[in-house]
């Protein structure tokens, strides 16, 4: 599988990109462009070499410890290496040695590896069952031995799992909701699903809303960079309504420019209009066969024209047409408690007929124990 003599060194963004292009799936948080979006942190493209051949890559974000020139080396949803390896140490050890030389007091990774999946039906039953309050209490439709193998090896190698809640910016979501765009088993395994099949997988409300939007005359179009302003206005409105802190327009402009420069179809803006009024707007990101719905906004008025369902369906259709494998609706919490406000978000996503997916989560390896401890204390205090 892997030779024990893997080496790690800095590579150029071009080399980094070339490696990503050979991958069917890699997180957009691991693209060189994402490093440009997160411009407040020092960044580095890392390459794994088997002899002279580039076999893995990672985007490292160096987050500085206050007042000290030491860093947490963070590889969000990465690195992009052979996670099926039985010798993960061969991959991770040269990486941590390199990062330590670069001044890291600790490393945080997010193996892009699925550990459990739950079908939409299983999630629905969990919500309906009064005795169940967490997704983990529902028998998973699939428990991935490969994911467990990664977790098991990380434990053997001394890495520490990070709690999903709290901690450094709460990290990336461990639970996500995804719609598989290809058949997974049976005779058609690997074949793309049709639009009809995807619609049939959705619940009645979703299908009805998509139809309703079309009937009401909602038109979905793709926007260019200059349309980001319109998106952002609606997004700020959404943030006020749903009580979250919006990012500035410049953040989206940087993201749009950087990701677009990397690949023509990496980022797309979808705008849903009804009689000229913008009722919903969303951002789609794609790397290889993986497509993400990453930001969304919707108007409070004209909710009955179902603009949100219309833009979602347009994005799903776009992903399907582009030959993607997965349409990813990103994070959900693991609560199935009907009294929890987050359950509404899950129910919206579950209606698409996809599946809840648990990833291995984020893992830390302290390289300088004292500084790492100081950092953990600092974060715990900041988190309060």
């Amino acid at each position, binding site marked *: 599988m892997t030779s024990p003599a893997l080496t790690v060194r800095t590579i150029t963004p071009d080399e980094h990109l070339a490696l990503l292009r050979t991958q069917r799936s890699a997180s957009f948080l691991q693209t060189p462009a994402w490093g440009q979006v997160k411009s407040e942190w020092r960044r580095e493209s890392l390459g794994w070499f088997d002899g002279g051949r580039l076999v893995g890559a990672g985007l490292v974000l160096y987050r500085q410890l206050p007042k000290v020139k030491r860093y947490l080396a963070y590889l969000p949803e990465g690195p992009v290496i052979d996670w099926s390896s*039985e010798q993960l140490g061969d991959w991770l050890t040269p990486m941590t040695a390199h990062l330590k030389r670069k001044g890291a007091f600790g490393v945080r990774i997010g193996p892009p590896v699925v550990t459990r999946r739950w079908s939409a039906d299983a999630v629905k039953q969990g919500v309906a069952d009064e005795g169940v309050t967490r997704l*983990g209490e529902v*028998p998973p439709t699939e*428990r*991935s*031995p490969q994911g*467990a193998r990664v977790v*098991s*090896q990380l*434990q053997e190698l001394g890495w520490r799992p990070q709690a999903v809640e709290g901690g450094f910016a709460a990290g990336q979501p461990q639970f996500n909701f995804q719609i598989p765009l290809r058949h997974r088993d049976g005779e058609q395994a690997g074949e793309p699903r049709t639009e009809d099949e995807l619609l049939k997988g959705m619940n009645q409300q979703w299908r009805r809303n998509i139809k309703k939007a079309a009937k009401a005359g909602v038109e979905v179009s793709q926007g260019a960079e200059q349309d980001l302003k319109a998106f952002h206005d609606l997004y700020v409105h959404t943030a006020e309504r749903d009580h979250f802190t919006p990012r500035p327009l410049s953040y989206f402009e940087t993201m749009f420019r950087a990701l677009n420069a990397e690949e023509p179809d990496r980022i797309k803006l979808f705008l849903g209009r009804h009689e000229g009024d913008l009722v919903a707007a969303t951002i789609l990101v794609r790397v290889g066969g993986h497509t993400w719905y990453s930001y969304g906004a919707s108007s409070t008025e004209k909710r009955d024209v179902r603009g949100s369902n219309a833009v979602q369906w347009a994005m799903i259709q776009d992903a399907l047409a582009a030959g993607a494998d997965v349409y990813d609706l990103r994070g959900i919490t693991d609560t199935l408690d009907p009294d929890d406000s987050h359950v509404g978000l899950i129910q919206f996503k579950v209606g698409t007929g996809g599946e809840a997916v648990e990833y291995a989560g984020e893992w830390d390896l302290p390289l300088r124990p004292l500084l790492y401890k100081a950092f953990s204390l600092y974060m715990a205090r900041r988190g309060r």
Partner: protein
Amino acid sequence: MSLSLYVDGDRWRAHLDHVRDTRPAIVPVVKGNGYGFGIPRLAGEAARLGLDTVAVGMYEEVGPARGSFPGDVMVLTPWRPFDRAALFAPHVIHTVGRLEDLEALAARTDGPRVVLERMTSMRRHGFSASGLREAGELLAGTPGSPRPERVGVEGVALHLPISSGSHLTEVERLMTDVVAADLPTRRIFVSHLTDAETALLRQRYPDYEFRPRIGTDLWLGERGALRVRATVLDVHPVERGDVFGYRSRTAPKAGHILIVSGGTAHGIGLEAPTGGATLKDRAARVAKGGLDAAGFVRSPYTIGGKLRLFAEPPHMQASMLFLPHGAPVPEVGDEVEVRVRFTATSFDATVIS
């Protein structure tokens, strides 16, 4: 004339029924001296309780268990190729903890049933995390090679240490190793988890079946139903300075020498090192050592509500006690209470009311 275990049968059996009803899917352990009851009796009780599997410690114990239990018998000591007593039969479930042993069992033609043991922090027997993954690969068969379907995998065993802290972190880690091994089983045999821990585990792994292996809490969980008594065989008054015993000791003061049933052959006076390592435990041991130096060792025999002193080290089948002047003196034929460690005592008679 014997060291006897008296059991309040109704109370004892009510406790056994209660454990069976409140702790689902238990596998009773009936190994060793049968917790003082003997393996055949416990196996018979397991049959009465309607359970499908019992666990024994060694292959030598399969026969005695099977004599009064019609179900499966799991052997807890991992199978080794050099175990001459190893028994292969449809009702025997073997424990395996090494890859080479699994390979050897898979090479047999009679389809042995096995439980794969994952080593815990106890570090006694079992596969490491990567060893269990290799076992999983062996059982799945490499592509192109025939699948060794001759081994029936009954489950994975986790034998946790007895500790006051929570086992959950460790069990979660071990369960991840189990999932990673991709085994053809979803059954886990666990020992020494609290009911709350088992319940939480069942909640977090609703797609797995957990079967607690249970011994002490089952058979000895209702101590009030159990009484151990020895018979007073002889009573001799002594004055200060009188000589007695194998070792011709002299009486330190006036009193009585009592000869009671129960000696080293029963396990009386033989002590396994106690598990306790607290300061209090150690202080108690030092105090006992002090008595020992003066020729006074506390015995497990109770007379007049007090634990009495050994007059000299226990004999093979009887013990000599020293009863100081003023203490109530029992008569020959009376029975006196004895405190014993059930797993280290063999009784001459077990009387179940």
